[in-house]
């Protein structure tokens, strides 16, 4: 079985977010970058699915600064990696690059994290599936493969549903799909020599552009209510904040 896992390099969750003085770009100096948490779940699942045989290729759209994260993915258990040499402009750009690669390198299953923690976009998995003409199950919590078919459990409004889909398909990994894997010494050593191929991006029209960033107005400091006055909370919420 050939699995492709799409991975993104994102700022660490605890990173302070700062922008250039003109607010047009995120400042990456001094920020630790990590493998997008949902992508790590997707990768762990792919490694689980191929313990009996098969390969896991990871693909990342990024400049050379993403290579440490790609090596981490190899250490977790991916077989080989591809880096498309470009900053990930937007979801459409990323989906088009991956689709271009898949056209000449078909896979049985494509796994993505359901969302990336920097743009909070969930557009790549579904766009990629549409470009390839295959199904996408975006919020998959469970996935099992039987031959050329997949059974998935997906989150929906107020509940969940069980779906059946033929392969190939794109699945967005939600929490619960697989346990996090910690790379062991052997994994880390082999990651250095596993293949990491760099390819050039294709031209893609630009439909969206980030014009600027902004930060939310910080909340004013907390108003403490004494434990014995807890009962006054709702009147305060109504009178001061009008939220109930």
């Amino acid at each position, binding site marked *: 079985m050939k699995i492709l896992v799409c991975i993104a390099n994102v700022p660490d*969750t*605890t990173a302070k*977010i700062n*922008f250039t003085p003109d607010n047009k770009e*995120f400042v990456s100096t001094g920020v630790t970058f990590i493998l997008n*948490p949902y992508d790590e*779940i997707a990768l762990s699942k792919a490694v689980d699915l191929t313990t009996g045989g098969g390969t896991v290729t990871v693909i990342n759209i990024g400049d050379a600064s993403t290579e440490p994260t790609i090596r981490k993915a190899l250490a977790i258990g991916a077989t080989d990696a591809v880096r498309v040499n470009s900053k990930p402009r937007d*979801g*459409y750009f990323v*989906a088009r690059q991956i689709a271009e690669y898949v056209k000449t390198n078909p896979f049985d299953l494509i796994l993505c994290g359901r969302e990336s*923690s*920097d743009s*909070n976009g969930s*557009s790549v*998995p*579904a*766009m990629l599936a*549409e*470009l390839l003409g295959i*199904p996408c*199950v*975006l*919020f998959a919590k469970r996935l099992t493969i039987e031959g050329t078919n997949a*059974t998935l459990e997906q*989150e*929906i*409004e*107020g*509940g*969940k*549903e*069980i779906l*059946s*889909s*033929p392969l190939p*398909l794109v699945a967005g990994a939600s*929490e619960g799909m697989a346990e996090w894997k910690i790379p062991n010494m052997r994994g880390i050593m082999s990651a250095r020599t596993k293949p990491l191929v760099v390819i050039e991006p294709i031209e893609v*029209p*630009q*439909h*969206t*552009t980030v*014009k*600027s*960033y*902004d930060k*939310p107005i910080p*909340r004013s400091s*907390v*108003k*403490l*209510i004494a*434990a014995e006055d*807890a*009962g006054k*909370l709702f009147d305060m*919420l109504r009178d001061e*904040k009008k*939220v*109930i």
Partner: protein
Amino acid sequence: MSVLVYIENVQGKFKKSTFEVISFAAAIAQKQNLPLVALSIGDVSDEELGKAGKYGVTKVLKAVGDSLKEMNVQPYASVIAQAAKAENAKVIVLSASFSGKGIAPRVAIKLDAGLADNVIDLPVMDGPFIVKKGAFSGKAFAFVEISSDVKVISMIPNSYKVVESPGSAAITIFETQIEAKDLTVTVKETKRSTDKVSLPDAELVVSAGRGMKGPENWGMIEELANTLGAATACSKPVSDAGWRPHSEHVGQTGIAISPNLYIAIGISGAIQHLAGVSSSKVIVVVNKDPEAPFFKAADYGIVGDAFEIVPRLVEAAKAFKSSQNG
């Protein structure tokens, strides 16, 4: 030309977020001087469809058929794209619900349209078309220009107020072509808990964490939530331990919510949790540890033992509700 809004139903009924997205689309249509057309897919009564007319829709397209009875991403995306082409829609608006998130990107590709997802405010339309969306898991906003001729927008529930706009909508059947290649995914089973308030669109949320010590103590949390008409949520350790379902987990690897009021009980406030709730308009924190980081991100805080404070809140909530109704 027109603005097209996809009006999602759950078991034949519209939710508050449906009327929010209609109001949002109506404001765009008005600004661009274009008619607002709504598309409904599946079995929805004409009486229910007529409600769209009260929020600015002038025409409702009703797409029905055996393959459209249950929500299924590929055929639904195909129908929305067909309607967009039929109505020459320049802007297509959807709610960023679970299904909307899977459908909007497919529609964008089909129409060669730029997509702005998780939008939280009306676009600026004087000159370039610019939308505001959340970024960096609640720590920032991004202003994004969509420069393609056709634009697809998905809007976060509970970020735009419902606005009535008296009028009526003409309902017409929309004939669709569904291709077999779009029908390869089948639904085997659906499990919905319809009695609870849906968490992703909830205006009020009562959430609890490890401070509750065990799942057997959740009765008072549920009672507080029921009294207020709120949804229930929990922190990651609680869902990991199986005390509460995964669907209640809010946080960086759970869901992100933006309710008007978020009450957090016995939750310390780790950054990963805040990433899921920082867009809440008002945050109330109850924790017996005065150093709990959550107090720094809260509007109101009560330092105390949840087992003493929550019963008091339940009583106060009951009194508050009956004085509201009485």
